[in-house]
């Protein structure tokens, strides 16, 4: 059903959730709207169309509380452990609703750092075996969930996906409705394959102009959060549009959708275009439904970002909204650089880092930690010679893990230490000691800073523009 329906109303009969018993329409409460509803479906955003189709309703509007059927439910070892113990408390639920629509990915404290985390992983592993869950990605065959699921063709346009991880918003990069929830919501979804939610109002961000060299999707999303604030999209859908977005590769779209949550958004979503469809074909994703926002759909607000003047960005402690130009922070000394994670752990990110690090050395006094986001990315780094570039530069190259981003392992910071990081949060104590500091940036800036030992914009290294690896 590729390519249909374009525009027009949501088609409840053609909703996703194939293989799931067709759900009776459920609307618990309608938003108090202006005037009555008409028989003609109202113009809707892509988010509203996906939700309507999965609720079996011809239309929804912001504020409606509905139940949607789910195409995929994801959890990692931290969220799954609690979800499994909650699932066991549900009377009448002995088997999950559909073992082919659940993905379990050990990622956060794996390979396990201690007995407590090994126990959580074992709970998830045992549950996967007991329930016959097909998409369990063991250590060595997976990686970080938000890198692994897309590259295995498990998320597609028009689908509904929830995950026991706030960065589940990543899958909006392919035009899916994807949102993070807590473990009890995951337990409920394991049993039912459904979730209740309030339909979010949408905020449209229009990216205009052309990107300067060394300005990546990470810089755009940091700049956006700097503009609208960490609660700028609270309870809302963020819709990323405009000519700059059309030029972005899928890796960049995942990066931006990933950090939608850092503006408080329920989901972040990209229009589906030729880039998306080529990606889906390449990863073997089939049988998806494409929805497009209607031209006259309602938005809570529209923000226009002029990108031509955007420089490489850094978010300084303690919030992702504290964005500055990297070139203004040259006096900030760093002790560690982390390149990877669910935000920037894809092969394109690794190439950006290698472009900077090739033939250069990590500064004395800096530990540079490169973490490919999945086994596939790890393997590709080896094939392209990137791993050798990293090692020659003096980096450590880690197995895929969320590790340092959550202050878990593989790069935890001591008191007073500073890290430039391609991760997504710079909250107090996020990567270690409460007085340690995280500065968020894209791979170009993180790599350039690793070379100089101070926060550095790649332009300041006087590289030939776009130098190939």
């Amino acid at each position, binding site marked *: 059903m590729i390519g249909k329906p374009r525009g027009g109303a949501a088609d409840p009969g053609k909703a996703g959730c194939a293989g799931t018993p067709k759900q009776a329409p459920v609307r618990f409460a309608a938003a108090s709207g202006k005037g009555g509803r008409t028989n003609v479906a109202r113009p809707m955003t892509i988010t509203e169309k996906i939700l309507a189709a999965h609720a079996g309703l011809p239309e929804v509007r912001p504020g409606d509380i509905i139940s949607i059927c789910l195409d995929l439910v994801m959890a990692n070892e931290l969220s799954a452990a609690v979800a499994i113990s909650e699932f066991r408390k549900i009377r009448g639920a002995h088997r*999950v609703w559909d073992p082919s629509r659940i993905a379990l990915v050990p990622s956060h*404290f794996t390979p396990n750092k201690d007995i*407590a*985390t090994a126990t959580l992983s074992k709970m998830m592993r045992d549950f996967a075996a007991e329930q016959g869950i097909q998409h369990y990605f063991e250590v060595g065959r997976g990686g970080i969930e938000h890198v692994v699921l897309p590259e295995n063709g498990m998320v597609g346009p028009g689908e509904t996906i929830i995950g026991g991880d706030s960065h589940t918003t990543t899958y909006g990069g392919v035009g899916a409705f994807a949102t*993070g929830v807590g473990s009890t919501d995951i337990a409920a979804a394991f049993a039912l394959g459904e979730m209740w939610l309030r339909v979010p109002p949408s905020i449209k961000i229009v990216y205009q102009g052309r990107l300067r060299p060394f300005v990546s999707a990470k810089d755009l999303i940091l700049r956006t959060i700097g503009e609208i604030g960490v609660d700028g999209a609270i309870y809302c859908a963020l819709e990323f549009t405009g000519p700059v977005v059309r030029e972005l590769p899928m890796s960049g779209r995942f990066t931006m959708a990933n950090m939608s949550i850092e503006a408080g958004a329920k989901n972040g979503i990209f229009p589906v275009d030729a880039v998306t469809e080529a990606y889906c074909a390449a990863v073997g994703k089939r049988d998806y439904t494409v929805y497009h926002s209607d031209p006259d759909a309602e938005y809570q607000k529209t923000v226009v970002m002029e990108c031509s003047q955007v420089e490489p960005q850094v978010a300084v402690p303690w919030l992702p909204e504290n964005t500055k130009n990297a070139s203004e922070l040259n006096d900030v000394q760093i002790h560690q650089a982390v390149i990877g994670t669910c935000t920037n752990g894809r092969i394109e990110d690794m190439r950006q880092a290698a472009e900077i690090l090739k033939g250069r050395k990590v500064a004395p006094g800096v530990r540079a930690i490169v973490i490919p986001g999945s086994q596939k990315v790890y393997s590709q780094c080896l094939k392209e010679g990137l791993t050798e570039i990293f090692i020659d530069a003096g980096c450590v190259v880690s197995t895929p893990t969320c590790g340092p981003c959550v*202050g878990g392992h593989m790069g935890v910071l001591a008191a007073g230490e500073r890290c430039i990081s391609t991760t997504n*949060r710079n*909250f*107090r104590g996020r990567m270690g000691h409460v007085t340690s500091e995280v500065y968020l940036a894209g791979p170009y800036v993180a790599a350039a800073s690793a070379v100089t030992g101070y926060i550095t914009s790649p332009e300041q290294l006087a590289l030939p523009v776009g130098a190939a690896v």
Partner: protein
Amino acid sequence: MILRGRAHKYGKNVDTDVIIPGRYCNLIDPAELGKHALEDLDPGFVKKVRPGDLIVAETNFGCGSSREVAAVALKGAGVAGVVAKSFARIFYRNCINTGLPIFECPEGVDGINDGDTITVDAANGVIRNETTGREFRATQFPRFMQDLIAQGGLLRYVEQRLAAKAATGDRTPDAV
């Protein structure tokens, strides 16, 4: 349900990492989690909090991670409820699902100082500052969420849905 306790007041954007740092996310036990609640924001919190106390905070309380243990840690520390100007959405759901009462009340937050004694009538959302005598009213939960809470939380709702599906022949593998 009437909640009564002292207010511990904090600013905006209190994130899940300071509510319960990642280094403790290998814990599940509420009491153990409670020993580290708000450790990276206010190291003295667990020593001064008494069972029944409430947290009062500005906007976007609970932003960040989906870690449900954030709500559990606050409960484990003895916190009876949270009054804030707004909540981050995942934390909001987690509180409803884990039974930590939360109240959106911008005026109340402005009218409560750290250390004031407050009472909250969870049924009608009336917040009374006993120290100053002022009263405030929290935003009402939508009807669906009120019902969810009244039923005993999300899992009881799931049981009803499973039973309803079984009765209508909309079979799920486990509801047979």
